[in-house]
């Protein structure tokens, strides 16, 4: 970030603008960048999901708006913007309106602490892994608010299931993250990325010592994202649409946006923990100029996240939904013990490495 900061200050001083102005405004820029990038990413993700689901089910997917259906999600987003925001009778109006706002903020903040490349880390604190975990679990609060405030039984069921699900899958995630922290001796996402650097590229990635942890993490993230086969909170065949049944127009769009940006953020989070984050899989970068390398690093991160998202969509096209009891049982009796075992293995590897 320092590099960008100096570039920015230099740019300002060249135009005779005081440094103080730069100090204040510099921290707003990343959020503008994220907000702009986020919309684009979500539009692409929604289109990708619909296209891929189409291909998996032998359909064409959206193919009318724009070339190859590219503008379909733009049209959908525009439609949602134009739609009326219906507030049903007898809802808790304050909470009902608060929920979509609250769901958006933590997700936005979570994207700010992800190291996109060696330079593009907007907020870099020493323990930002913990911070990320907190922010990633935060939307559940607004999901509950939405379910409760909607005054709808289906919404309430969705919210209830959502909470039970996130609470039970949060623990395995924490244990897996702990094992990564042990391996990397760091609780910083950039630090974890550096710890996976090796001359031979992928050989240093934590997926190899922690393949068990990777699988646990992937499953738990699926559950936390309410994605198939863990999409019980939004089980459309049972609960109509779960917690966002009563939402319409832009409020619904915000829930939708959050869902997909969380998917993107969490896929990047897994890539950072296990797949070397922004490091190149070949050990060396294709570009030599330091400025281009930053973009190449971001490209590698997005590619890894994209592959993970592809797998998530693939799973959605393949599997039926779990029953709610199996869901909780699976977490507490299978994933949690395994994640503790994974932590144990990680500690052994670390101790072995220290002894050698």
């Amino acid at each position, binding site marked *: 970030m320092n590099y960008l900061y100096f570039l920015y200050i230099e740019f300002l001083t060249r135009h005779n603008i005081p440094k103080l102005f730069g100090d204040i405004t510099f921290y707003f820029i990343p959020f503008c960048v994220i907000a702009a990038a986020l919309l684009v990413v979500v539009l692409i993700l929604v289109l990708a999901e619909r296209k891929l*689901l189409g291909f*998996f*089910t*032998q*359909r064409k997917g959206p193919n009318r708006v724009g070339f190859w259906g590219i503008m379909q999600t733009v049209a959908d987003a525009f439609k949602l913007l134009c739609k009326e925001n219906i507030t049903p009778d007898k809802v808790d109006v304050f909470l009902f309106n608060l929920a979509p706002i609250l769901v958006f903020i933590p997700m936005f903040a979570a994207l700010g602490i992800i190291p996109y490349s060696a330079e593009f880390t907007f907020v870099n604190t020493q323990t930002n892994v913990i911070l990320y975990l907190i922010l990633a679990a935060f939307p559940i609060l607004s999901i509950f608010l939405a379910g409760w405030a909607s005054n709808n*039984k289906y919404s309430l*069921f969705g919210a209830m299931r959502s909470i039970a699900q996130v609470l039970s899958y949060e623990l395995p995630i924490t244990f897996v993250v702990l094992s990564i922290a042990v391996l990397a001796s760091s609780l910083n996402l950039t630090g974890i990325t550096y710890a996976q650097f090796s001359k031979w590229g992928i050989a240093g990635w934590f997926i190899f010592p922690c393949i068990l942890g990777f699988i646990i993490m992937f499953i738990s993230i699926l559950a936390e994202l309410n994605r*198939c*086969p863990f*999409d*019980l909170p939004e*089980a*459309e*065949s*049972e609960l*109509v649409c779960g917690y966002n049944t009563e939402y319409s127009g832009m409020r619904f769009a915000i829930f939708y946006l959050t869902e997909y940006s969380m998917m993107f953020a969490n896929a990047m989070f897994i890539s950072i923990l296990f797949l070397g984050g922004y490091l190149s899989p070949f050990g060396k970068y294709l570009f030599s100029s330091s400025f281009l390398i930053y973009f190449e690093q971001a490209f590698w991160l997005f590619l890894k996240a994209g592959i993970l998202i592809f797998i998530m969509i693939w799973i*959605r*096209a*393949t*599997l*039926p*939904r*779990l*029953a*709610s*009891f*199996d869901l909780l049982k699976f977490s507490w009796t299978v994933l949690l013990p395994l994640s503790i075992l994974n932590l144990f293995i990680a500690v052994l590897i670390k101790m072995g490495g220290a002894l050698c």
Partner: protein
Amino acid sequence: MTTTTLKLNLGPQHPSTHGVLRLLLELKGEKILSCEPDIGYLHRGMEKMAEKMTYLQYLPTVDRIDYLAGFFYSELLCRIVEKAMEVELPDKVRAIRVMLLELNRIASHLLWVGAFLMDLGAVSPFFYVFREREMILRFFEKLTGQRMMYNYFVFGGVRRDIDFLDGVEEIISILPKKIDDYEKIITENPIFLRRTVGKGILEPEIAFNYAITGVNLRASGVDYDYRNSDDLYRGFDFRTVVLEEKDSWARYKARISEMRECVNIVGQALDYLKRAGVLEQRLINPLNLKLPAGDYYSEIEAPRGLACCYVRSDGGEKPYRLKWRTGSYYSVNLLRKLLVGEYLNDAVAIAGSLDIILPEVDK
């Protein structure tokens, strides 16, 4: 601390009720304490309507009783008239009818597989089954001009001769492979097993008390298939699929196996039709058709259980009273019993496994 139960209206506008079924559920947490099916949202007065129409006028409407298996109901009405007028069907007409009925049964079961998996949360099989169902519907369309409301069987025969069979040949050569594909992605899937094995157990005694017939009964270990004693199926060699497991999984497996048997029957009918000559049939003149006074009854093994038609005629050109018996009607009633004590998301799966079609229930 007092606890109260939650009354939940599942339907009539709900994605998983397959139409306009309304289930009044009483829930404690997610556990169902009682279930009260509320039907009639799709009632079209099919029975009362018959009293105002001649047999010929009524014939095209009966396809609408079950839009997924229209042939079965027109077959029932034709059979009533043929019985009353004492007409014996020629072999070729029988073969054509059996072939179409069984193809229709396959189409109906295919759609059920997709809808059931949709209830369980798997999206893809729904599209796969539509792809195969499309082949069958294409053939029907080519033959009858209609995809769902065929109006092809007429009193004493069929509307026109079949002079092309390549569509059917394609279906029976492709379908077994496709059914294998479904089984690969569904049958042994651990999540699918967890959600169906041991869920919604239907004991044979309960099934008898609730007058359950068809695949649901055969999946409970009762060997009863009306096709075995049906005169129409005389000379066809097929196996009755009976499974002992009694649960949702058995009902799924029974339908899958039954589809294979249907392919087998269609193959036999096809072989006959290839050898048979030009269609010779003695049609009953439908104009001014008067059934002799008396009671007439016909039954058939429809995809959703035994379907029956009962006609009382007073010798006029309109039925004095007409009554339909449809399989789904009894399956809906069974929900009252099967869903109690289950959890909400299992309830959707169990209701889906019974193969309920609402137009058939409400008539």
